[in-house]
């Protein structure tokens, strides 16, 4: 009896990895999403990442682009949701980190075959912020030295021309 129970347990353990259908329980990397695009087409997924650039409003709905470090993807969401985003990622600016639950489309019919996510809910996981620019002293010193050198050379060169 024990043997059969053990065998059953082992079988279940061995087959469970094969039957993974990713459910919206934990966030998935965008790259992983793309790798498994065919399987995940039309499924509900959860992704999280930094909102970058800016939102692009198209009537009642908007586009935002999020970058999770592996890749970036477009999120089609209600304008009211998009407006929740305060900080957008760009130079020296970290955008809000958002958690998006929505339907992934490998080749979205509504959007000309694009791989995108139609958001059903957006949550701000972490606020973004502006990074204070830090200029290394070596850079300042280096540039001063180099500019002086360059100017010296120009002067020497123009003198030689005459």
């Amino acid at each position, binding site marked *: 009896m024990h043997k059969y129970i053990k065998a059953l347990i082992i079988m279940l353990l061995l087959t469970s990895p094969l039957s993974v259908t990713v459910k919206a329980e934990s966030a998935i990397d965008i*790259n992983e999403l*793309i*790798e498994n*695009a*065919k399987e995940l087409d039309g499924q509900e997924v959860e992704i999280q990442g930094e909102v*970058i*650039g*800016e*939102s*692009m*409003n*198209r009537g009642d709905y*908007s*586009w935002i*682009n999020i*970058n999770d470090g592996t*890749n*970036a*993807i*477009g999120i*089609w969401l209600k304008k009211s949701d998009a407006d929740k985003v305060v900080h957008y*990622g*760009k*130079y*020296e*600016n970290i955008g809000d980190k958002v958690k998006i639950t929505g339907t992934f489309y*490998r*080749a979205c*019919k509504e*959007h*000309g*075959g*694009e*791989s*995108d996510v139609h958001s059903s809910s957006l949550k701000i996981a972490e606020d973004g912020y502006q990074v204070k*620019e830090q*200029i290394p002293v070596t*850079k*300042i010193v*280096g*540039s001063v030295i*180099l*500019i002086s*050198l*360059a100017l010296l*050379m*120009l002067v*020497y*060169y123009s003198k*030689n021309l005459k």
Partner: protein
Amino acid sequence: MSKLKRKTYSIGLISYYIGYIVLLVASLMIIPIITSILFLEWNPMLDFIISGAISLIIGVLLIMIGMSAKESKSNVQWKHGFAIAALSWIVLTVLCAIPYRLSGHTFSFLDACFDVMSGFTTTGLVLTQDLDHLSNGLNMWRHMLTFIGGQGMVVLVLTLLAKQIGGAYKMYVGEGKDIELVPNVKGTARHIWEISIVYLIIGTMALWIIGMLIGLNPISAFLHALYIFESSWSTGGFAPNTQNIMYYHSVLYETVAMAIFILGSLNFGLHYAIWQGKRKEIVKNIETQSFFATSFVACILALAGLAKLNVYPDAIAGFRRIIFNVLSAHTTTGFGNIYARQFALEWGDFGILIMVIVMLIGGSACSTAGGFKGLRVGIVFKGLIMDVKKLLSSERSMKVYKYHHIKDRILEDTLIKSSAIIICCYLVTFTIGTLLGTFYGYPISSAAFEYASVAGNVGLTIGVTIPSMPAAMKIFYIISMYLGRLEFLSVFALIGYIFGGVRKTCINILKH
């Protein structure tokens, strides 16, 4: 003049002209500097000041070394022209990589050089990381490089330093542009710039307005318009976004960019002819005929093949994801509106093979595009037909076969031969490049796709070009982008020149 003196003068002349080119490109760094100041980006501003200063110093040094040679009024010969064009690209690649490296967005100096070479050759493959957080200064620089590279740096110099440059024609041909718009080369260079600047204004305005229509704010709409125009016209393919042109989610934006890159891939001589009123040229020209034929067939085949696999749901998706990408590849632009891995995972071998073929064929000669060039494909094709006809016709008929490229020209055997030889050079490097990829374990379709993208200066990626790529491949890709852009001859001439010199020096040493 003694042999040693002549050699010294040769090196001096080359040094002098490279120095001038370096100074010119160094002075262009003022544009990213101003951009960074406008956006209060202090680190990038300093990065460019440092790079500019270093370039200035080196430029002046090179000029001073070559000063005596220039003054002795030595003749600039063909070998000098090729050497100057070829060497200046190498020197500039290193100097222009400095701001990239200083920005911290590249993992190594090699990666920075890769991106610069990718920009100059209007390839568009990217190793720079985190494009979404790049400074405006660096973005301005990247896209500028591809715009300038598209014109050709030598062309840039020729336009501006008209009086000082003797032997201009030889440098111009050294850069792979051998069409004469106007009898004198300086005039030709000026016309090339004029055409590009006019389109720069029109194209940027168009994309700016559309950018705002699709939801971008005015400032970013303008910057993106400028960047995307520069990338489209030069058939470069850079974008200020990780997602490339997918960022915009707009069929209008993509289509306008497509129109720009199609026009940008056309021969400057063609533009010039049309602007002079000779509008029939667009149908008579062998290159437009070749491009129309190959691109149309490729699109049809791709549509059919991918429809069979049911990759895309409808015609609009087919237009946006298939036609756009096939044309992007054929014109060697490199804008991608699907993810790199999707080519490998969804398009299947047939689709990938079509892409490889169109990437190798490329665009028009004397344009910003890469690849074999439609002109050569057309010439070899017509040459084949000519040979078949000759075989079939009577031995006594002395028919002259012609083709039309700006004007009617004779289809001579030497021309067919040289076209075929260059096509062979591309195919040989293509084979080596693909072999190299498979050696490192990449599947053959990926290795072939990526290398075709490199050799044809396209820029689409199937996922091979990433920072962790073997350094040997990075180096081979850099050299290939360079070879492809300069169309082999300049680089071979340069190598021959260097080796010839080394060999002679060794012989001299052994004699004494």
